[in-house]
């Protein structure tokens, strides 16, 4: 009797598993870390009458979840995206298909794209493994009303002039402070401009850590910003940081003995923040609707870029034709991309669309400014040759030591030594200066 029951259970289980598997298989599986591809996928499904599944893995788990699938091939998607953070690692692995080869021949597209974006998808053998539709240069977003009040103008050109050197930034900081405003929410806002003054990779081809005076100047500028009270002590991505975009935030550090005639007010308002293109849509427009129209964007002392999403197809995908069609639509379809820009305000690396859109554009959130013009110009100054696979982690280690110094927990020398020793601990193959 028991045996019968057992056999029956096995049969039921088997049937269940078979039906579960055969249920409506998608024609294409796309994996990414945000839902921003959902709209393109809907469009693509209609266009080709196919079923595409978008699997979203949160950014924090993306690499650790997806990589085993790519390594083993089981459960790997047909198309997947990658962030700049690990892009350099991934294009060297056999994860993405080589798009330079026939029948894809994407090298033919090259001249239509911003150079740095295109180049970042090329691996050390010269093969394009991933492509991207966007470009992510950064700038300084500022509040027009505060600029008018303190600096007498809100013109991006004029403000950009003031921001074009570190000294200029500090001067504006002083003027802001005098009117109880703060230049930036936190010290991190100047970090892109320190290495930008003399762009060098963190690690050179000989696996040596490259340290320039300009890099080290981050210590001094950050300290100056803190000591002179040009920042609002609201670290990036903290609740206070978000709050600083909409109005006054609390500021009661009790520095009274440092500065006797300081405004006794325990509130202050932040003037500006360094953010890349996507910061406009995913940070400011999301979090600062109260101050919509009061913003503008201009240049900092040097060009920089932050973030960016690349896409490619899995090397062993069984649906390569369709996968390539999807990638082609996402990065190389003029009609689709024009709609996409209008919808999202994304800044594209694809010139044929950007040239059309940028002409005569004006963004209400930015008080009518044409940020496309501005960002395209900034993007063209970016040099991607200094990007290494170590950037994210080494930047983080460096930033930590800078804040330890700014907080007064370590001296400058101690902080630099600690930084070196942490780099070696993380990457034993890298040699650091003595």
């Amino acid at each position, binding site marked *: 009797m028991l045996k019968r029951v057992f056999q029956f259970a096995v049969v039921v289980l088997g049937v269940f598993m078979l039906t579960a598997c055969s249920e409506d298989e998608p024609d294409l599986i796309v994996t990414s870390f945000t839902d921003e591809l959902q709209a393109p996928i809907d469009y693509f499904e209609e266009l080709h009458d196919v079923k595409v599944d978008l699997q979203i893995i949160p950014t924090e788990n993306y*690499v650790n979840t997806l990589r085993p699938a790519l390594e083993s091939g089981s459960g790997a998607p047909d198309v997947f995206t990658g962030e700049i953070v690990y892009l350099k690692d991934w294009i060297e692995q056999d994860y993405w298909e080589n798009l330079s080869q026939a029948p894809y021949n994407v090298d033919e597209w090259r001249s239509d794209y911003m150079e740095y974006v295109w180049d970042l998808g090329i691996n050390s053998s010269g093969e394009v493994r991933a492509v991207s539709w966007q470009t992510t240069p950064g700038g300084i977003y500022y509040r027009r009303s505060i600029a008018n009040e303190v600096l007498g103008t809100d013109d991006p050109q004029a403000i950009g002039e003031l921001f074009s050197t570190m000294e200029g930034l500090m001067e504006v900081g002083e003027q802001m402070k005098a009117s109880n405003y703060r230049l930036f929410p936190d010290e991190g806002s100047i970090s892109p401009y320190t290495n930008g003054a003399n762009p060098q990779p963190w690690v050179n081809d000989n696996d040596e850590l490259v340290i320039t005076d300009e890099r080290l100047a981050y210590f001094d500028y950050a300290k100056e910003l803190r000591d002179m009270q040009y920042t609002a002590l609201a670290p990036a991505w*903290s609740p206070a940081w978000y709050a600083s975009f909409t109005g006054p935030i609390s500021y009661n550090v*009790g520095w009274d003995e440092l500065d006797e005639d300081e405004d006794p007010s325990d509130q202050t308002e932040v003037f500006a923040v360094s953010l890349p293109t996507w910061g406009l849509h995913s940070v400011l427009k999301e979090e600062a609707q109260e101050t919509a129209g009061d913003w503008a964007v201009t240049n900092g002392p040097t060009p920089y870029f932050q973030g960016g999403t690349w896409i490619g197809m899995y090397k062993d995908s069984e649906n390569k034709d369709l996968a390539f069609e999807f990638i082609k639509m996402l990065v190389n379809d003029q009609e689709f991309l024009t709609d996409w820009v209008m919808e999202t305000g994304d800044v594209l690396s694809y010139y044929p669309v950007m040239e059309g859109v940028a002409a005569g554009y004006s963004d209400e959130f930015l008080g009518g400014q044409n940020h496309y013009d501005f960002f395209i110009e900034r993007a063209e100054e970016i040099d991607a040759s200094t990007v290494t696979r170590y950037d994210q982690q080494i930047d983080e280690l460096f930033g930590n030591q800078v804040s330890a110094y700014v907080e007064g927990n370590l001296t400058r020398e101690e902080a630099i030594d600690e930084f070196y020793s942490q780099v070696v601990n*993380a990457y034993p193959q890298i040699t650091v200066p003595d």
Partner: protein
Amino acid sequence: MKKNNRQAYLFIAPFVIVFLTFNIYPIFLTLYYSLTNYSGMGGIDQADFVGFNNYVRLFSDRYFYQAFFNTIRIWGLNFVVQMLIALGLALLFSDIRLKLKGIGLFRALFYLPNIITIASVALLFSILLDWNHGGLNQMMLSLGLIDRPINWLNSPVYAQSAVALIGAWMWFGNSFIVLLAGISGISKDFYEAALIDGATWLQSFKYITIPQLKPILLYVLITSIIGGLQIFDLPMLLTDGNGSPQGALNTMVLYLYNQAFKYNNFGYAATIAYGLFFITVAFSAITFRTMYRKQV
């Protein structure tokens, strides 16, 4: 007889298969990883066999020692505070003289912090402990307890204490329930006899409660050690995940995680895992021996 045996094997097979696949195999695979410089990318066959190099590095790695002592400090403070609260409350609620009411309600209330997701707890406390905008500083300033805000999460001592105390707050309810169950299991006759004989509260605590509670205390201590040595989530989430400030929140498992998943040193991370394993075994063994020393 023989047939029965075969059926028994069939019944334990699911467990054995799962155990071999998901416990034993990974343990040996990790041992193998720890002898290589595997980066976690491109298959283990591309890694070089490096013998005991990783273990040599582990013994001279000051970040590992830092992580070890951080972990011990955080666990130690956490355990002491947690046990004081839990034991105190358990005694209070089990006292035959006091006969407190509403124990069911309190048991649930004390246990509540334990069922909140750690991510939420970390977010909550990082907002509370924020230097310039956080609730704790604002409150202490307005009460006049401090005259300038304290940068809690930027000071190694405060940051470690914060993690330890948050842990104690989360876990005292759990220990409370276990200890209360243990105390309830002690026969009331002992206490009544002691009461008649004129024993003080302290005497009955020292000569009845503690000796009778020993197995429970041992259980709580060992599970706490094993859990405490693996502390990861709070230090990871409360600051930047790198162990800031100044490595004060760099615990052993956080260090392992960062070596494996941030820096792609899978081989070395596997070595750290073995280091952690031996430390946990050693601590449990020491605890066990000390607790039972007199009885043997």
